[in-house]
């Protein structure tokens, strides 16, 4: 293990509660994150992502294993040392968590004065950071006067004003629309690169996975590599589909993945595309919305793992009726957001070619 890495976890386990109510949240986690790297942490809710983040963020002391952040061992650390580590970390919260009674400038100053920097000496840096996140004109406004995206960017400015070596972000895009979410993530990426910080980004948001240098997947407290997660997820999906219709499970899997591929073709999935997918999958296979959600997430993970779309072992058997339904549905997804982009057309043709069906209707 590289002892210089800003974040180094070894055999970390964590348990909540005592006695009969005891519940283990994390099992033997090993993670090393080098300076300048952005790591995305994904996983279903309840998988232990937040607990892991609070351990690294020195908000809890570790129980088992070694949590080294910025060279400080946090296992059984005293409150005083935890506070010292907290002061060197940049936090970006799910909601902005700005102080309502302070201006944007003062909110950022709250973080800066933790480092003992006098305002006289630090105010230019604050203005520069706010300028950098695009809030130069809004420096002296109060949070209530800003939009959700602006507030989140103010939160980022606060996290980054001290040029921290470790940045932790918990669902930074959860409360934002597509474009603001994208802007915020790009900003985190740029600033992290500029300052050479190690970044952990917890997210459910498939739209932002591309900024990561690596993706960690947490499931039921176990750290999984992406390909492990994908293969487990695929077998779970097949089980699920078999329950609905044992004869056509592999057809449905291919069908669902093909739909996801079209939806992701232009890198963004709009809500209307999601709705259309839910509708089609519900019609064809009686899948409920959470199962559709699961399949979509899985297909995105596959895309990241570069494992292709050939998971179902046997090439499905297309009769004429299914072929038509297959192609029509792909087009329906492409049209769901009102316009068919060139990428979507290319993707439909690629899928049709792979499965030996005609892409035209």
């Amino acid at each position: 293990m590289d002892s210089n890495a800003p974040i180094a976890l070894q055999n970390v386990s964590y348990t909540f509660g005592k006695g009969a109510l005891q519940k283990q949240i994390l099992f033997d986690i090993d993670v090393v994150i080098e300076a300048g790297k952005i790591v995305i942490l994904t996983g279903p809710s309840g998988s232990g992502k937040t607990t892991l983040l609070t351990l690294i963020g020195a908000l809890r002391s570790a129980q088992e294993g070694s949590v080294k952040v910025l060279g400080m061992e946090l296992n059984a650390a005293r409150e005083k040392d935890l506070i010292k580590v907290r002061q060197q970390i940049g936090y970006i919260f799910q909601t902005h968590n700005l102080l309502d009674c302070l201006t944007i400038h003062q909110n950022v100053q709250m973080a800066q004065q933790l480092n003992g920097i006098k305002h006289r000496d630090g105010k230019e840096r604050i203005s520069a950071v706010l300028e950098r996140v695009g809030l130069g004109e809004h420096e002296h406004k109060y949070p209530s006067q800003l939009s959700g995206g602006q507030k989140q960017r103010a939160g980022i400015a606060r996290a980054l004003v001290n040029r921290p070596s470790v940045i932790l972000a918990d669902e930074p895009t959860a409360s934002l629309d597509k474009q603001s979410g994208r802007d915020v993530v790009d900003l985190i990426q740029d600033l992290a690169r500029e300052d050479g910080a190690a970044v952990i980004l917890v997210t459910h948001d498939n739209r932002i996975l591309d900024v990561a240098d690596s993706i960690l997947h947490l499931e039921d407290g176990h750290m999984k590599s992406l390909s492990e997660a994908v293969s487990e997820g695929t077998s779970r999906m097949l089980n699920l589909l078999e329950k609905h219709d044992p004869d056509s499970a592999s057809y449905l899997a291919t069908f669902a993945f093909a739909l996801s591929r079209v939806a992701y073709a232009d890198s963004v999935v709009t809500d209307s595309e999601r709705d259309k997918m839910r509708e089609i999958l519900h019609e064809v296979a009686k899948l409920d919305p959470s199962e559709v959600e699961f399949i979509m997430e899985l297909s995105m993970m596959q895309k990241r793992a570069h494992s292709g779309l050939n998971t179902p072992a046997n090439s499905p058997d297309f009769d004429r009726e299914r072929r038509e339904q297959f192609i029509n549905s792909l087009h329906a997804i492409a049209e769901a957001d009102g316009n068919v982009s060139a990428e979507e057309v290319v993707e439909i043709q690629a899928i049709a070619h792979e499965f030996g069906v005609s892409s035209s209707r």
Partner: protein
Amino acid sequence: MFGSIPLGWLQLKHQKLRLFAAITGITFAVILIFVQLEFREALSASAVRYHSVFDYDLAMLSPKTDFMVSSKQFPRSRLYQVLGFEGVESVTPVYMRLVSWRNPVDRSNARNILAIGFDPTDSGVGRLLTPEQLEAIKIPDQVIFDRLGRNEYGPVRAMLDAGEEVSAEINDRRFTIAGMYNVGTSFGLDGGVVTSDLNFLRLLPTRNKSAIDFGFINLEPGQDAKEVQARIRAAIPGDVRLMTRQEFMDHEVAYWNKTTPIGYIFAFGAIMGLIVGLIIVYQILFADVQDHLREYATLKAMGYTHGYLRNVVLQESVILAVLGFLPGMTVAHLVFTQAAGSTRLPLEMTLQSALGVFTLTLIMCAVSGMMALRKLKSVDPAEVF
């Protein structure tokens, strides 16, 4: 500690309505505390008005005398007995009794007034009367009237100032008002007249001349009052009490504060004011902490200590104390000016009492802040994620 951002003040200022409610509440509590304490103070100060104008080192009174206005008599010979002790220079027997005064203008209006009688040639009367007034009361049926008595006794002061001759019926006998002195009212006393022992006995013909109400004893210069007191006490029977000047005053104040419910009521009122203020400030600060729990958790996650947050809440409580105290003091001052005019009681805001109430207000706010802080303990920075 606060860096350059006064967070407590900014948080208070951010919610203007709540700040206004807090200040109003504290102002109310401050007024309540001021008024109650000041009335209690006035009770003590006014109760010993006559005790402090006479000139004496030791006072003799009946053991049955609880307070001045309801004095019981004791044999005058006991007082003269004291003259035989070494160190005693002179004694002054004093007669005292509430008598009925009839308003010289509105004659249907009768009111009790304190009548005091003594030999004008005795020395214990001190600064109460001028030498001219001492001469005047030697003339039969002449009395000196307390200028600072209640207005219900009639416009005696205005009439005398205008040069008119004023006479009034006291215990159904006509007396001439030959001058005025300054003492004032108390909770047990509305006004007074001072005259010679002979005139006093004209007022109360049934009184036995050899039974007196108080005896004032003057010592030779350089004598220790305590020491002389001990010597006299050891030698005379227990049918009289002998007190030093201070003991005599304390005896009177203790009666009003402890034996009557009046002192208790004022003390209770002040405590109620304090509790009301305490609850208001606690409610405001508690709601404030409650509303900011998420922000405080965020600050903790950023690396702020519990001590910093504690200071923010204490800063808020000190600010509230100051902002509530100033208008409270102003209003209380107006109340005192108004009340002093109509009751003639010694209601006056001293620097000492203002500082005392300010200290109480600070303590009140700080205690409330401490109670509200218990909520802050529950702030877990891990909860902000």
